């Protein structure tokens, strides 16, 4: 099976959605396409884990890539299901025609395609094109509402991410130059770089890594280049926000992991590690006050994404194998929890008709289908024990102390405490208390069981499960990926 075949399902779904003749048909096509995507990724995952990496023609799927591919298809599947309710609501309130449905679903699957493409790119040039393609395909999804705010958000998103990514390309070109001088056969392949890394000129690689870090870091939402993130995440339709936060940031971070592996092999871990630690701490420090003072719950979740990306960056900076293990676990848990949080916040927005935290109360009793998953997801995000994020944060912080990074660990702990307080406070305010009059606004729009309730329940269950039990295969998988990021496994 060629590597690119995992792109077939989402691409076909995208094309078929354009041809869909009715809204119901488009929804069915989309659900089937997303399921097929997930199936293909799952199958590819099994094959990679059992038989080792598949490669060919600048493409390569290894344990790390397939992890990203699975997270992407999982969230894309959930988002595609949740989009039905969202679009129905939009169609009623905004008077959308069939064409809007076609465009929305086509772009959604195109967005998924581009993220899967990121996960299979071995050639760093392809990787760059794929990451840029994620921006371009999601630009109109972010600006879908056509309101002032969403156009503003879309503009900032495209401009900042494109310019950031340009610097990443500069880094890639410098790296290519260094690699070609070191005799890697004029190749842009990650594997070729890994092989040639010890011979490459460290001065050029340092520059290359710096630019790649700034570029992909912008897209991964590291402070202070994160300014596009809260706008885009809060203004995009909620299923899209879930994909942006759960997968898009992860995809950019994935690119950084690849560069980290090369840089660590050439320069030793000290230089990249300093960058990751500094930007990680900065992201945590910047997210904390914004979460505490949040007024808009979608923006609060967006800043929580900055926080979690910061935490993962911190873990990458600590760099020990167990810290990387924690980071990868965190990646999965964050994607699940944030996806859940954004999608349920979309339901709250629909029911309450407001983004203001102060105007939402009693979500649990008035809108249990939205309130319960929202509360669970935000509690998970704040790092409360029964959920997987607690485990991963525990691993990362204990590794910080174990590696002798006392002050980094203490600072991260303190900031996480502040963020915990903020998230906890806001989530409780929104969930409990008496509901306002006339809520939910459109009572006949209960989310369907298969479209929302079942996936949400699965997400919560998995999150809770990962809190106290990591299955053996996953454990081995995480270890394998940690070795890849360390630069120990690339063949």
């Amino acid at each position, binding site marked *: 099976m060629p590597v690119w075949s995992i792109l077939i399902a989402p691409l076909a779904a995208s094309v078929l959605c354009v041809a869909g003749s009715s809204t119901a048909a488009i929804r069915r096509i989309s659900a089937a396409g997303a399921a097929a995507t997930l199936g293909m990724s799952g199958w590819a995952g099994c094959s990679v884990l059992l038989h080792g990496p598949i490669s060919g023609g600048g493409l390569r799927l290894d344990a790390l890539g397939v992890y990203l591919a699975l997270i992407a298809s999982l969230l894309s599947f959930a988002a595609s299901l949740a989009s039905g309710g969202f679009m129905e609501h939009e169609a009623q309130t905004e008077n959308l025609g069939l064409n809007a449905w076609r465009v929305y679903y086509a772009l959604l699957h195109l967005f998924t395609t581009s993220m899967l493409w990121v996960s299979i790119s071995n050639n760093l040039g392809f990787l760059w094109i794929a990451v840029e393609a994620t921006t371009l395909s999601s630009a109109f999804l972010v600006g879908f509402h*056509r309101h002032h705010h969403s156009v503003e958000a879309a503009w900032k998103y495209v401009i900042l991410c494109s310019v950031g990514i340009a610097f990443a390309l500069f880094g890639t070109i410098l790296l290519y130059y260094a690699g070609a001088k070191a005799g890697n056969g004029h190749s842009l392949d990650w594997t070729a770089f890994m092989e040639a890394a010890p011979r490459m000129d460290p001065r050029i690689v340092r520059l290359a890594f710096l630019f790649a870090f700034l570029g992909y870091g912008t897209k991964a939402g590291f402070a202070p280049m994160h300014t596009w993130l*809260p706008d885009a995440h809060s203004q995009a339709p909620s299923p899209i926000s879930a994909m942006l936060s759960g997968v898009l940031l992860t995809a950019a971070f994935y690119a950084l992991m690849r560069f980290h592996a090369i840089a660590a092999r050439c320069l030793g871990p000290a230089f990249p590690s300093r960058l990751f630690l500094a930007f990680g701490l900065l992201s945590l420090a910047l997210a904390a006050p914004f979460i505490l003072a949040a007024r808009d719950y979608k923006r609060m979740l967006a800043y929580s994404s900055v926080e979690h990306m910061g935490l993962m960056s911190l873990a990458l900076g600590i760099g020990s194998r167990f810290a990387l293990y924690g980071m990868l676990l965190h990646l999965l848990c964050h994607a699940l929890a944030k996806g859940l949080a954004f999608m349920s916040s979309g339901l709250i927005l629909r029911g309450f008709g407001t983004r203001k935290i102060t105007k939402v109360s009693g979500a649990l009793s008035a809108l249990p289908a939205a309130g319960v998953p929202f509360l669970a997801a935000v509690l998970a995000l704040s790092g409360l024990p029964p959920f997987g994020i607690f485990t991963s944060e525990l691993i990362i912080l204990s590794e910080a102390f174990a590696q002798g990074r006392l002050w980094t660990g203490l600072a991260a702990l303190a900031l996480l405490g502040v963020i915990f307080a903020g998230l906890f406070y806001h989530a409780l305010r929104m969930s409990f208390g008496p509901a306002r009059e006339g809520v939910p606004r459109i009572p006949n729009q209960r989310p369907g069981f298969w479209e929302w309730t079942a996936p949400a329940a699965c997400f919560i269950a998995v999150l809770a499960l990962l809190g106290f039990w990591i299955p053996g295969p996953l454990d081995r998988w995480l270890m394998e990926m940690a070795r890849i990021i360390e630069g120990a496994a690339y063949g």
Partner: protein
Amino acid sequence: MSAAAPPFWMSQAVTFLSAMALVSAFGILSLRTLPLCIRAYAVQSLVLGLAAFLLAIHPVRAHVLGIAAVAILVKGLAIPWFLFKIIEDVSIKRETEPFVSYPFSMLGGVGLTLLSYAVMEPLSGSDPFAARGFALALTLMQLGLWLMVGRKKAVTQVVGLLVVENGLFVAALSVSFGMPMIVELGLIFDLLVAVVVMGLLVFRIQSTYASINTERLSRLKG
């Protein structure tokens, strides 16, 4: 370098063209009206395309020739034409409206230029050719970024991004053995898509705000 060095006038011409690219970047920083900025961008793209062409004919490298032709067509002609169409269709005022004054943006540009050359200094010992190219590339990228930071109009920000991209083109040219063809074509295609996406967004900004002043795009805070 390669055994058959290109004739002196040719390398001198490439050097001259690269200086022209730098001058046109400063031109974009200092010009006041959008049509002039777009023309200066077109000049910059053509100059760089010509430089690529000269670099490709001695020794002959077919794929660089192809890329030079595509770059001239897309960046020198198609994109400027599209930008002109945008500013015509949204019928905006021609002024570029700076946040920072023109002299300050020029001097800032000189500072960024020096910074770029300083950053690339460690390279110049081992490979002066590549060091010069990368430094020029970084300069153009930073000037483009500086333009985006310093101007209010959405179209000027697009022009800034295009200058950044021209910097990348220079970077790809300075790798004397050339980037893989498929990647470079991918980049140019990508650029085209990006410009179209941004153009459509400019229309949307225009239709929702009745202005393409990005200063108004500041309602999202906190």
